[in-house]
């Protein structure tokens, strides 16, 4: 925070991704800095989830490279890849908790796989992580016994299990009611404040974007790439691109709401 030049955590260089023959995104380049709340936004079907899947290694890029902490992820061998995977957590759009395991087992599996902690230690950490997301006492429940919001929170606890440096979110607040979605936002801020985690968030929710984002990139499906990059309020006010202005000014209420200081907005990281 104090240093003048922000530390680059993720660097995406000239990335192209798609499925088989169809190219969804091309020539995508951007970087994410340490402790940043970085948003990927854009209309439905513009390839936000595809970009995310490419960045976390679920989809092989057609071209280009993703690098974490200066180490290429795309070109990594199995061991390096596992080391990089250890540094990030992912919260999936539909939570993706392992349905045959209890919440405690869900949260402790990453610890089991990547650490040599004893069973007792793992249990202790699990309890702590679940408490952190407000789910203490639900250790023995199965994912099918939870509500949507509780599942999201449990999935966040799982994503945070290894104290990752980066957490990826695919639409953290879709399908949640406004209050729960607000709580989710608070939780995200709180995690960033306490653990200093870098977050990459795919979202539609304007209120979340204005409340949380330090920087956003806007994707477009016609251009198949980034059409704008910057702080959301600046973009909303000054962007010359009508698509960006339309997207960010859809809802007058939410842009007004951001003028309220009630939304905790920490200092921007860079500059």
């Amino acid at each position, binding site marked *: 925070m104090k240093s003048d030049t922000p530390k680059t955590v993720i660097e995406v260089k000239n990335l192209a991704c798609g499925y088989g023959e169809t190219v969804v995104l091309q020539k995508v380049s951007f970087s994410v800095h340490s402790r940043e709340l970085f948003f990927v936004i854009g209309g439905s079907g513009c390839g936000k989830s595809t970009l995310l899947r490419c960045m976390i290694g679920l989809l092989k890029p057609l071209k280009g490279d993703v690098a974490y902490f200066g180490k290429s992820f795309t070109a990594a061998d199995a061991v390096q890849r596992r080391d990089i995977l*250890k540094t990030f957590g*992912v919260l999936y759009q539909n939570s993706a908790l392992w349905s045959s395991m209890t919440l405690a087992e869900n949260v402790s599996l990453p610890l089991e796989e990547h650490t040599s902690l004893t069973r007792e230690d793992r249990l202790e950490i699990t309890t702590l992580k679940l408490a952190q997301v407000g789910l203490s006492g639900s250790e023995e429940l199965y994912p099918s016994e939870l509500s949507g919001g509780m599942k999201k929170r449990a999935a966040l606890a799982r994503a945070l299990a290894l104290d990752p440096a980066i957490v990826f979110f695919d639409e953290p607040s879709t399908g949640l009611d406004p209050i729960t979605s607000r709580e989710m936002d608070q939780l995200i801020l709180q995690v960033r404040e306490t653990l200093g985690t870098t977050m990459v968030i795919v979202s539609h929710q304007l209120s979340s974007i204005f409340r949380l984002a330090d920087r956003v990139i806007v994707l477009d499906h016609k251009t198949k790439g980034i059409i704008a990059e910057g702080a959301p309020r600046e973009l909303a006010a000054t962007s010359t691109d009508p698509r960006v202005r339309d997207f960010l000014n859809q809802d007058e209420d939410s842009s007004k709401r951001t003028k309220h200081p009630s939304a905790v907005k920490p200092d921007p990281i860079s500059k």
Partner: protein
Amino acid sequence: MTARQQLPEAGTELRTATAKLETGQSGSECLVKVGGDWRLSEPVPSWTGVLGEKTATSMRVVPEGLGKWDTTLVLFLVHGQAWCAKSKKDFHVEALPKNLQALLRQVAGISEPKPMAKTDVKSTWGLAGDMAKMWASHAMEMVSFIGECTLGFMDAAKKPRQFRWMDCLFEMQQCWATSLPIVSVVSFLVGVILAFQAAIQLRQFGAAIFVADLVGLAVVREMGPMMAAVIVAGGTGAGFAAQLGNMKVGEEIDALETLGVSAVDFLALPRLLAVTLMMPVLAAYANVLGVLGGMFVSATMLDIPAAAYWIETQASVGVLDVTTGLIKSLFFGLAVGLAGCLRGMKCERSAAGVGAATSSAVVTGVMLIILADALFGTIFNVLRI
């Protein structure tokens, strides 16, 4: 409308008045009176006999005792409007309720519904080509999956503590519990059927006792392992595909991969080992039940005492026969496990995909079982076992 009147009286709230349509002429205008309740669930009048009226220059629809109405009435009016537009007549609905008019304006200009597009029917040869391509790609996937699993097992052999033994035990238990009742019934009945078939032939020569030889060998060498394998393919194999398919759809497998955990190591290997180890046990059990089935028929129909039957079975069925059957069943188990896990992990990300994966797992499993059986038959024949 007579059909309506014959219906039994419903509760008062549900009772509806019949929809009514009256037409009359006033000057050059055709007056259409709609009344009663127009419900989707009730028969309603149609335009038949009204449209086609040539004399009137315009048509006016007015309500008369109009009760409840829904889309039926809107649709009815749309038809009338369309006909009027086509034959250049004015269509007046000003007297109708405001909300009905609003609805009518909303749907104004909808075109005739297009006939549903006919599904593309491929030629038989085209379809056969597609199937061949699919089978070829399935075969390739299977080969690479076998490779992955082999590597996984080699890793696990080096680090046995990391293998998910608990999952393996759990799956073995599941496999045993779900298959046992069906294997019992089917194997016993297969023994009974074989014994009947043999008895018809052998009785003619007064050689009924040889039923024991025939049933014993057929069951132990072929039918026992085969029946057990087919049943496990339909139960446990399909279960694997459904489980893993669901996990794929719910991004659970993705969540494992981004954790740096291989889904093959984590999910497939314990299941593969479980079903491979369980299959010979079930096959042995099926053997016993099959022989019992033959014994039952012999004792009740052929008057061969159970003890004599047992002695004859022991004399004809050698240790080698039993062992070859059980060795085969090990491979059947592997085939069922591979088919189930592979189809589940290659499942398409939709609910329909899970169904397709499940049935594909059963088909692939049974096919692999039969292929393996044919292969073993040839090998044993060459080796003269």
